């Protein structure tokens, strides 16, 4: 396990609210290997975004974090402010969901691409500018020289996201965190972004944490899939495995809810009854039990542990109703 680029163990995050501290992430373990695209899936409220924000120390004031996150021999959760600044942008880059709002509307593209590069790597103006041109070419922005002097609002959504990716990768980090990078984009543009990310990853051995609720995106780009529900990991494994042979009832339900492009007309859409619980109102025991078709009495009281269930799969469901005999 020590060969993993990032190894998170027992991550717990509590955030301040009117009703006191609320546990948003409740004991999460995962590893990201080098050169891997690590998929983190889940609905809103599952804690996936908060987990990665915790890694970068970007949580609001008053947040409490427990657990360890070993990255290149350092525990990210115990780093001081200075060391965190060194990690952010330089060793770990981040791309946010909405490129409309994640780029500064009043700064030129050049400025946004070069300011952290100069800060982290000490390049001078000309060197930084050359670097910026390279990056724009890598992410396939036409006319990089012209683009440098332009402003974000002059670009389309897809191009803005490419620029955001270029910014995140400017200092050649080892890990890229992409939080719903394609959700705000048109479906037709999504494929281009995913292809870009995949290509960049293959070129440079970059690891990517891909956060999305879209299982279709997962299947096309993620090597490893981890599913979160209500602040905990419920299932993880190689993506094709998990998607073709899900073992957690939640994962199976998510897959079943996807409309099938080849379904017969008038096939009713299946949805999971109920809604995901808000962090303040999580049920006791296994958080999924109120919506689970296979729940037994024990599920209401016992929090299931995430256990190895053979062949690099992990599962947090003692009932394991979908286990397909080998």
């Amino acid at each position, binding site marked *: 396990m020590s060969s993993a680029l990032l190894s998170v163990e027992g991550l717990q995050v509590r955030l301040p609210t009117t009703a006191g501290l609320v546990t948003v992430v409740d004991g999460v373990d995962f590893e990201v290997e080098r050169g891997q695209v690590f998929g983190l899936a889940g609905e809103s409220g599952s804690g996936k975004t908060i987990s990665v924000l915790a890694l*970068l120390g*970007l949580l609001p004031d008053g947040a409490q974090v427990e657990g360890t996150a070993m990255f290149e021999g350092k525990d990210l959760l115990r780093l001081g402010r200075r060391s*965190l*600044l*060194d*990690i*952010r*942008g*330089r060793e770990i*880059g*981040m791309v*946010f*969901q*909405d490129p409309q*709002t*994640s*780029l*500064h*509307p*009043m*700064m030129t593209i050049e400025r946004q691409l070069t*300011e*952290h590069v100069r*800060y*982290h790597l000490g390049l001078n103006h000309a060197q930084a500018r050359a670097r910026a041109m390279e990056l724009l070419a890598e992410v396939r922005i*036409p*006319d990089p020289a*012209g*683009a440098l*002097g*332009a*402003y974000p*609002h*002059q670009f389309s959504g897809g191009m803005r996201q490419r620029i*955001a990716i270029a*910014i*995140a990768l400017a200092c050649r980090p080892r890990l890229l965190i992409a939080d719903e990078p394609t959700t705000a984009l048109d479906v037709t543009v999504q494929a281009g972004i995913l292809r870009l990310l995949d290509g960049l990853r293959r070129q440079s051995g970059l690891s990517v944490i891909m956060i999305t609720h879209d299982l279709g995106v997962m299947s096309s780009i993620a090597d490893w899939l981890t599913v979160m529900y209500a602040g905990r990991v419920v299932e993880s494994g190689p993506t094709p495995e998990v998607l073709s042979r899900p073992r957690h009832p939640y994962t199976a339900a998510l897959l079943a809810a996807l409309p099938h492009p080849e379904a017969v007309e008038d096939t009713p859409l299946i949805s999971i009854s109920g809604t995901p619980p808000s962090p303040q109102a999580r049920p006791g025991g296994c958080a999924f039990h109120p919506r689970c078709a296979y729940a037994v009495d024990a599920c209401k009281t016992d929090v299931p542990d995430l256990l190895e269930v053979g062949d690099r799969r992990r599962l947090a469901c003692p009932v394991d109703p979908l286990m397909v005999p080998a």
Partner: protein
Amino acid sequence: MPGWQLGLLSRPFVRFLGRRLAALVLLGIGITFVAFVLTELVPGDPAAANLGQRAIADPAAVQAFREHYGLDKPLPVQYAVYLEHLVTGDLGQSEQSHRPVRSDLSEFVPATAELAVTSILIAFVLGISLGILSAVRRNRLTDQVLRVISLGGISMPTFWLALVALYVFFFKLGWVPGSGRLDPGVLPAPHVTGLYTIDALLAGQFDVFVSAAQHLILPAGVLAAYNVGLLTRFTRSAVLEVINNDYVQAARAKGLPERTVVLRHVLRAALPPIITVGGLAFANVMTGTVLVESIFGWPGIGQYAFHSATTLDLPAIMGVSLFVAVVYIVVNFLVDILYGVVDPRIRVA
């Protein structure tokens, strides 16, 4: 792709400025109309008021006056005459000083300019810094205290503050000199701009500079009080609007230190609304000078306006109002330009 650039000399921006300039000119004409209407509303015979006791008995003088101002012609013609006079800079004659209003104004403008510029500088520097501080320390003690102080600033009648400040700092404590722009016996430096401080610096006369600065500080401070309160509040809310935006979080995620994030990213994004307050701040200073210059014995157009108001010297009142309004719309135009400089999204609109 050619035509990318949205720089300051780009076509879209120049067109934007052109539109603003056109609006300025139209507004200028509009305010002359307002001033004209107001002068028409004045009850009584303008000739009688303007010419004084003796002249009124002389029919030739009265007739000349009437012709000069077209008083015997229909209203639209009178307006045309009025406009014609304005274009040549003729603002009428003061009933008090019996000099052209224009000469009165040019004598008094530099003093007020010095006061206004200093006051606005103080207000912006202090107001923006306190506003940022207040926003960054949101809801903590510093913020609470600053919010109360800034509320106090915009609730205070400026003329009262002037009185109290003068009483405390001059009369009781003797920290600052009393009225006027310079100590008695001190002569101003050779006239370049009319601003005593600048002129003194240009001429290297530091003792004059010190004297002028000492006299400047209290009036400028009093005038700035309202604007400091206003700017603190505006900056605070502008910064708060912006501080949780994604691009600020993205800047942090790039590993930039918090101070850079706040001063470069947050402030930059919060600047546009703060800049628009600049125009308002100028108006407040103008308002303040009318109320405050006479208290400080500051020989500016504010004091001129005050005396004109108390003596009902109508040409002077109208002349000052028109002058200040014109300066105000020019200032607003400059603010618009500045807004376009700071926020490139406007340049396309």
